[in-house]
């Protein structure tokens, strides 16, 4: 049996030369051994930890509470207003689900905030150092945060949008019957989309490491393209203006309710694939920076 040759035995530091367990004292006296069972940790541990973290701060309850309030509150308010003002035949040929759009548009803001806070608040409080000492695998921490946040955001959005959709469908009896694909888009589809936007915010929070800065960027991303496009009067900029309209987040949110601003541009499930691509790119940057930078 051959033992692997040390490159230079003389230069080998004491920790390589010493026999016995690595933690033994140089004198041969054993170091401290804990009675607590040692377990090999995995992603599941990190997910359990992140779940405890997200449920134990008040900002989670606040942002999700405001989200539910906006989606359901505004959704129902719009429905009641339309119901009160619509005359016979007005809604013929329209999908009753499309009135859920307004609540989700406003509700996406607290979701973005929660996404940013999930990562950036740890940098603000210094908690990140404690977290990374407890789990030195930085990628695992970010992955666990992403999984926990996405699950929460998706479930909460699905429940809220599903509720509004059912109320709308029950209320507008003279509107046309929504198709199965319309049901799917206005509930599951939009929930995926909103949760993905939140995930993008989470990645941006990890990159910017500053809550206020990252939230500003995300709100800007949500609203700026549309606002800029509205004030683009010049004919020569028409192409750019149309692109800003079509690809602005509010317009893409409208796609889920067949309420997009333009006839061209993303349709069907396109917004999801676009958001998926952008979020994946943001996460690639977040992971790379997380490994490279000091905590």
């Amino acid at each position: 049996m051959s033992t692997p040759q040390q490159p230079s035995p003389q230069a080998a530091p004491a920790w390589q030369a010493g026999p016995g367990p690595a933690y033994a004292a140089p004198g041969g006296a054993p170091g401290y051994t804990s009675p607590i069972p040692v377990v090999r940790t995995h992603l599941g541990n990190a997910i359990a930890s992140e779940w405890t973290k997200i449920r134990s701060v008040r900002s989670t309850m606040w942002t999700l509470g405001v989200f539910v309030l906006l989606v359901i509150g505004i959704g129902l308010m719009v429905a009641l207003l339309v119901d009160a003002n619509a005359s016979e035949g007005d809604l013929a040929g329209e999908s009753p689900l499309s009135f859920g759009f307004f609540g989700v548009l406003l509700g996406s803001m607290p979701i973005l905030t929660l996404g940013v806070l999930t990562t950036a608040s740890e940098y603000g409080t210094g908690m990140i150092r404690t977290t990374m000492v407890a789990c030195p695998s930085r990628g695992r921490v970010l992955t666990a945060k992403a999984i926990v946040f996405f699950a929460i955001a998706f479930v909460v959005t699905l429940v809220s949008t599903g509720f509004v959709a059912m109320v709308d469908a029950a209320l507008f009896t003279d509107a046309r019957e929504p198709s199965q694909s319309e049901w799917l888009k206005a509930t599951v589809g939009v929930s995926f989309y909103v949760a993905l936007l939140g995930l993008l915010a989470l990645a941006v929070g990890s990159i910017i490491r500053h809550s206020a800065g990252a939230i500003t960027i995300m709100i800007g991303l949500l609203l700026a393209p549309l606002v800029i496009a509205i004030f683009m009067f010049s004919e020569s900029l028409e192409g750019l203006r149309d692109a800003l309209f079509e690809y602005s987040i509010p317009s893409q949110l409208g796609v889920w309710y067949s309420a997009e601003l333009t006839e061209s541009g993303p349709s069907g499930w396109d917004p999801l694939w676009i958001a998926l691509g952008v979020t994946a790119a943001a996460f690639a940057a977040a992971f790379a920076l997380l490994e490279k930078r000091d905590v």
Partner: protein
Amino acid sequence: MIEVEGLTKRYGDKVAVNNLSFTVRPGIVTGFLGPNGAGKSTTMRMMLGLDRPTAGDVRIDGTHYDRLKDPLTYIGALLDAKAVHGGRSAFNHLLCLAQSNGIPRGRVHEVLDTVGLTAVARKKAKGFSLGMGQRLGIAGALLGDPRILMFDEPVNGLDPEGIHWIRNLMKSLAAQGRTVFVSSHLMSEMALTAEHLVVIGQGRLLADTTMADFIARNSRSFVRIRTPQRERLLDVLHGAGVTVVESGSGVLEVDGGKPETIGELAARHQIVLHELSPQQASLEEAFMQLTAESVEYHAHSETPRDLRRSWGEDWTGRG
């Protein structure tokens, strides 16, 4: 055991830690001493894998920190008391740390009890005093019952009772065979707890020695004598071959002498003594001397009057 080898950290042009090598051994408290800005915290952050070293290596029981699968059972660290989300309760803070390392939930209650925070376990960390925050940080360090413990300035903000508690805690942890590494900028604090000393200044290693050796080498012990019969005592001591130094106001000092010998000598010659006391130059002084050249942030000792004079001279020079 922690091994630090050629550890270097540069921030742009500035070298925060410069080619640092030392070993922290189990079973004793090792003090990590240096003035403010010497690079103590940077070194500790690199040991814990938070900061990436520009060069060099840190090994925890032979492994890199980020390779540890259950780091909290290897190392418990108190970096700073503020590394906590203020909105989270003490219990939940410790629970999320425990979960990330697969440590049983019951252990959270145990460490809360150890540091005396059980009564406020459900309170938000935001409302904690500095001392309570420090205790919460220590609870986090003890959570995995680790064999290596690292404390960055643990006595900061603690009251005398808390300081006493943490001193004894560190000593008992070391006595159980654990590796204990404590940083401080107070030499006097280290003298009470540490057995081994690593001293750095401006990121460079200044001393790596036992506490006893450091004291012996860096502090002067002498016997202080006051007597109304000064001349006679000087003659007697001289006759006995003892070197005496006269310091101001009639005080005599015998370097390295024993009070017993001098007292007996004085009694034999019937010399009245008003004071006979063994003295030790403060370790703080020795530490300040050692690090004098490497202190980064000097307070200017120029008094305002000096400034004014030089300013005035400048004016008269022109006039």
